[in-house]
């Protein structure tokens, strides 16, 4: 049986965010907003994570880190870009050290707008990510069945 019975685990990495989105992501996991009620657990380990939440844009130095974290995650996986910085580069787009949003390094599935993104919006993004994750897990399960 594939992953669908499992709760998706979440990995959060701060690209070059200003912290605004970062602490809002953390706030989502604490009692008032409580994203954990959707069966999500925040983990620090990419090898156990299914959903990758990234805040902030990508620069020269963190590009390899972001890519490596993404590659270490097992399939299927979903990437959520939180905040306009992670979507496009945001206010820092014109800075010399920002290459762009998270999608210049890794494929992004869900974009959560806002500066800072509100917890409600982040939770909305996470819920969408969970659905997408289930869908992908089911698909890969079918493929496994076909081969097997």
């Amino acid at each position: 049986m594939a992953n669908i019975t499992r709760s998706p685990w979440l990995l959060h990495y701060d690209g070059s965010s200003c912290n605004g989105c970062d602490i809002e992501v953390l706030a989502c996991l604490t009692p008032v907003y409580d994203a954990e009620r959707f069966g999500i657990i925040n983990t620090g380990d990419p090898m156990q994570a299914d959903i990758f939440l990234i805040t902030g844009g990508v620069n020269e130095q963190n590009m390899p880190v972001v890519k490596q974290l993404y590659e270490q995650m097992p399939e299927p996986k979903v990437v959520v870009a939180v905040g306009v910085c992670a979507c496009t580069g945001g206010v820092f787009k014109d800075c010399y050290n920002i290459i762009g949003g998270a999608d210049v390094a890794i494929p992004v599935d869900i974009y959560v707008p806002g500066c800072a993104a509100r917890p409600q919006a982040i939770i909305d993004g996470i819920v969408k990510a969970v659905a997408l994750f289930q869908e992908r897990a089911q698909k890969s399960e079918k493929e496994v069945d076909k081969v097997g």
Partner: protein
Amino acid sequence: MGKRSVIPFGPQHPVLPEPIHLDLVVEDEKIVEAIPSIGFVHRGLESLIDKRDFNQLTYVVERTCGICSFQHGMGYCECVEHIFDVEVPRRARFLRTIWAELSRMHSHLLWAGLLADAFGYENLFYQCWRIREKVLDLHELTAGGRVIFSVNKVGGVIKDIDEDKLKVILDTIKDIEKELKVISKTFFKDYSVQSRLKGVGILTPEQINALGAVGPMARASGVSNDMRSLGYAAYDEIDFEPVVSNDCDCYARCYVRIMEIFQSIDIIRQAIDKIPKEDELAAVIKGNPNGEYFMRLEQPRGEAFYYVKANGKPNLQRMRVRTPTFANVPALCEMLKNTEVADVGILVVTIDPCISCTER
């Protein structure tokens, strides 16, 4: 004598909300040396002076750091106001003080939560963040945003806090004070908390002065420096004493920050008491700035410098920020020497690192 080896710490690490990388040289579980490497969050924010004019820059500066966003905006605006030599209306100065202290409360509560998380006390972490949400609700009520609320502008503030809202603030901080008293007991008296914090990461006042540490780090080692006593915004009309402890360890840093939340509550009460009833919200600004100014202010993490230089054009010539974490990193590296690997997480958290400020 064991063999030396190097353990990498970060940039992505469970106790770290932000990327900083340390190479820890260890010998038998004891740290011999810590070598920091930074640059993961560098954006090049100061270079935006070429592309944004001095008014637009307020919004960029606020995004130096999402936690002390308001105070960054305030530091920048006061600098430019001094160059223009305009007097900020008294009500605006008091409003700035109120917002600045609210953001100090939210920052310190956030830190207390992260500390609790670092020593594995999940419940306490949640309690701190639950209380913090009340402060964020006040931000939202008064300014419309939760963490980045852009109410500063060169000359004053954009929004007013009316009487009803001031009353809500007073009621809410009363609640917060009550709940904080309960959790502060755990921080100060709990056996397991003390065993993780007491006597760990000692920094003597001499080391603090030599390494130039600032803010709660310095105050926890008996060095009483608090830039608020310089009297920017409306602090000159407010009566307060810096919170100082002489224990020099992690426990002292925790004590200082938690007592500062109570102090902020007191400052907000004084400010609401003294705030003038009817006043303008902002002074009129004409033309472009010409000249330079340098200002120091006390952010939740310590002293920050702002330097602005302008030559009569809409775009500034230079804008420079030095943030408190930058001043505290040498102290952190000194503190890490001769400690256990297991304490690294806590030690890093007790300087309250804000990497995105540091690297901008």
